[in-house]
């Protein structure tokens, strides 16, 4: 059956379409060319000038796995807080639910209701990947995928310290992608999570891990090279050293240089853009970070915007979360060392607009959004749930698109923070086309989802239709229609059909010979066997809900 969406106003940056009126034809879950006159159109929907974009893609959102489930378990009170309004969150609307730890079903439903059709778990610990996939398998409506965390695992650190050649490293990285069904590789506080287990409390880019005598720079260089050599689309996903520390912007700038021209993605860069100026020794370094991003065309970044209200931070960065635990609100936290593989730190936070640091963090994120020139290299995230729940994206979109709304919100902030920010001098307003780049075309290109994030012939028919409203928050909170793989799944912001989505992966070729050494390593040092570490594809696809898509990439 062919479905026709006619008279839509198309925003499809992958094809340079900026609000053009065009019809879209869908068959068997894909967008097709206009069929011949003899072919029957089964269903026609007149969109009458409504805004049409590809389904949105969240390229960084903690939607599943150990630390997310720990956050749920630790914070049962969040489940109750579904619709209450925080006094401090007065600039948010009821659409901004502030529920930071949705269960798997809620996660899928809240995403699709906002027109998002895919989300990527950015911190899938290889040893915990099975749990991550179990949770993602129980997340309906959307496609998903994960970035496997490396760079603090002892197998890799031993290889690097032993001076193993790049080819061996590449084989290991590719093996991890296969074994964990990931689509990208992430490094969190390179070397720092492991160093914390040796009681190191801080690790700078050029500081050595006390046991391995390797620097964070060594780790970054090796992993970014491996990811590049393997030819997968997604650049190395980097959570820099010194998360959240005043003055950390220099580490971030040095990390950009350490990429040495290779592609690298710096994640939740807002949390890594802090200076030490002013009476409180905490200031915005957004201008320096944005300038460097504008200059280094090999670098991409997502923002990790904070929004005010109650949330929880769930990070692989046990070293820095141990320090952050003293700011926990409510006062509780979980810090874990995990399996000579990585770690995690789960710390609830309540961001308040009358708190100097929080208010400035809010402004820093927006300053970065507005000062980075190329929307193809900056991505809209709140690092869900770390900066705010993903349900606050419509609010964030309005802040970017509506200068007066933004300035009104700014005027309510802590006054000392206002004095430290140049936000009101940034007059840029994002266009619908910019938003479509950031949340669709750019994200798909970055991750290598060739048939997603655009509306060209052959694309998967993940399509979101909005009514063009002046209130961009209302507009993006509640699309009129969402299609997932060609099926109408949301109507007027409500789910009308449940679907299960696919898992996107990348599986570059590698020398299987590496398994011999890995098997010996597992037998000697691990508490599980290699065969149990590897996830069989049937574990993801066997129950009839899940489906694995392997993306083929080639270096350009």
């Amino acid at each position, binding site marked *: 059956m062919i479905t026709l969406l006619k008279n839509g106003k198309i925003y499809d940056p992958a094809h340079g379409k900026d609000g053009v009126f065009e019809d879209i034809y869908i068959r068997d879950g894909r967008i097709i060319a206009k069929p011949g006159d003899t072919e029957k159109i089964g269903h026609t929907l007149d969109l009458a000038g409504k805004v049409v974009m590809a389904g949105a893609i969240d390229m960084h959102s903690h939607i*599943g796995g*150990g630390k*997310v*489930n*720990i956050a*749920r*378990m*630790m*914070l*049962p009170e969040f*489940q109750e807080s579904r619709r209450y309004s925080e006094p401090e969150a007065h600039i948010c609307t009821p659409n901004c639910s502030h529920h930071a*730890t*949705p*269960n*798997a*079903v*809620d996660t899928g439903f809240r995403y699709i209701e906002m027109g998002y059709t895919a989300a990527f778990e950015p911190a899938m*610990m290889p*040893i*915990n990947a*099975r*749990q991550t996939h*179990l*949770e993602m398998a*129980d997340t309906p409506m959307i496609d998903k995928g994960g970035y496997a965390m490396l760079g603090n695992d*002892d197998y890799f650190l*031993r290889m690097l310290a032993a001076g193993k050649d790049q080819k061996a490293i590449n084989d290991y990285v590719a093996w991890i992608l296969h074994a964990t069904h990931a689509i990208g590789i992430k490094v969190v506080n390179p070397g720092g999570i492991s160093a*914390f*287990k*040796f*009681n190191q409390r801080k690790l700078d880019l050029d500081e050595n891990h006390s*046991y391995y005598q390797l620097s964070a720079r060594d780790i970054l260089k090796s992993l970014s090279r491996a990811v590049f050599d393997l030819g997968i689309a997604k650049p190395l996903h980097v959570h820099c050293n010194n998360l959240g520390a005043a003055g950390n912007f220099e580490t971030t700038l040095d990390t950009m240089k350490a990429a040495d021209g290779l592609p690298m993605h710096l994640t939740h860069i807002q949390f890594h853009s802090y200076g030490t100026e002013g009476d409180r020794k905490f200031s915005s370094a957004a201008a320096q970070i944005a300038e460097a991003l504008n200059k280094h065309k090999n670098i991409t970044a997502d923002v990790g915007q904070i929004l005010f209200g109650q949330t929880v931070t769930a990070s692989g960065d046990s070293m820095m979360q*141990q320090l952050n*635990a003293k700011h*926990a609100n409510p*006062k*509780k*936290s*979980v*810090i*874990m*060392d*995990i*399996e*000579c*593989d990585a770690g995690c730190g*789960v710390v609830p936070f309540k961001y308040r607009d009358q708190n100097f640091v929080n208010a400035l963090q809010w402004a820093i994120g927006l300053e970065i959004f507005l000062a980075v020139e190329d929307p193809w290299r900056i991505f809209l995230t709140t690092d869900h749930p770390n900066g705010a729940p993903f349900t606050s994206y419509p609010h964030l979109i309005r802040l970017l698109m509506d200068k007066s709304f933004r300035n009104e919100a700014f005027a309510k902030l802590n006054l000392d923070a206002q004095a430290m920010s140049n936000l009101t001098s940034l007059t840029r307003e994002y266009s619908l086309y910019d938003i479509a780049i950031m949340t669709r075309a750019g994200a798909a290109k970055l991750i290598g989802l060739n048939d997603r994030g655009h509306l060209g012939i052959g694309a998967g028919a993940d399509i979101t239709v909005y009514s063009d409203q002046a209130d961009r928050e209302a507009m993006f909170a509640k699309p009129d229609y969402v299609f997932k793989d060609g099926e109408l799944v949301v109507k007027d912001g409500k789910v009308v059909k449940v679907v299960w989505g696919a898992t996107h992966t990348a599986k570059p070729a590698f020398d299987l010979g590496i398994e011999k050494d890995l098997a010996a390593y597992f037998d*000697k*040092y*691990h*508490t*599980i066997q290699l065969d*149990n570490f590897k996830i*069989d594809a049937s*574990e993801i696809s066997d*129950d009839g809900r899940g489906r694995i898509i392997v993306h083929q990439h080639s270096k350009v």
Partner: protein
Amino acid sequence: MHNAAPSIAGKTTDLASAINAAADILANSQQALFAGLGTEVHGMRALMQLAEKTGATLDHMHSEGTVRNTLTLQNSGWQTTTLTEVKNRADLILVIGTDIISSHPRFFENLLWNADSLFDKPTPELMYLVAAGTNTTPGIAPSGVAPTVVTAETAAFPEIFAALNALANNKHLATESVAGIALSTLQSIVDRLKAARYAVIVWSASHLKFPQAELSVQSLTRLIAKLNETSRVAGLALNSGDGDTSVNNTSTWTSGYATRNRFNPLKNAGKAEYDNYHFSTQRQLASCDALVWISSFNPYPPPSSDVACIVIGHPNMKFDRPPAVFIPVSIPGLDQAGTMFRLDSAVALPLKKLRTSNLPSLNQVVQLINKSLSK
């Protein structure tokens, strides 16, 4: 191969009849209790769907211990580690209130006495703080080195933990001994924890059998947090088995809540609710109108009760009084594949099917009941 067959009120029947009988009981129930929950991830996923449909309450057979840990997690959080870290990193292990081996028989062999470690550490030093009479001989190293054993009444643990916390905080205690233990002994425990490169404190909440034991778990986790200000110490909470860790994790990502939860049968139909006091098996048995007892790893029979009881479980299960419905199911990891969380919650492992069985899996049975209810 098992010979066990489904039965209704003790009379052998076929699977379809047993399924229909179970569905009938649930269809007429206003407030069912799903207890035991001895299953793995996929069985629990199926049970959660059935619980949502029937408005049932969920509690695991070993939750008395689990809840002590969960309450600590929800009140202050904690700092913990996992088995591979223990094996490769721990140079000091302090065991609290348990012999470990009765619940985890290969703990010492796999994690302590195995000489291979990534960082060439010595065999860890082992200290016990346990009730007198606890079997600590498994703690004697292969080299013959005996562990340090400090004994006290279990009921005195809260006092001892408080003293350890005080000493870790450099507080002066105006006494010579605490609960019969010389202050110098407690000081030496704290000193050794502080001096260790990576100390691990192991407890089993199910062994802390005294009122408000969750506060003692919390006292231990506070001690760990304090010591971590300057050195590395981590906790390891042992579980009690029968899939307790798998069930708790699956429940949490499915409903948002750990177990001792329910799907409200009346108001806000299907809404998940959490109450680790009221939703205990013991309390619910007094008010539920149907009991679904699940025990697929071990032939543990249901608690005695007068409510209509559906048992889905181990084929060797024996009953004092036959339940309304009994459906024997395959044993995960033996008769069927599955997925199981390890005690440290960080690792989920595939369970393999090792032999042929003619029994259905719990997952299949629950789905059939669900289907029968939808008719």
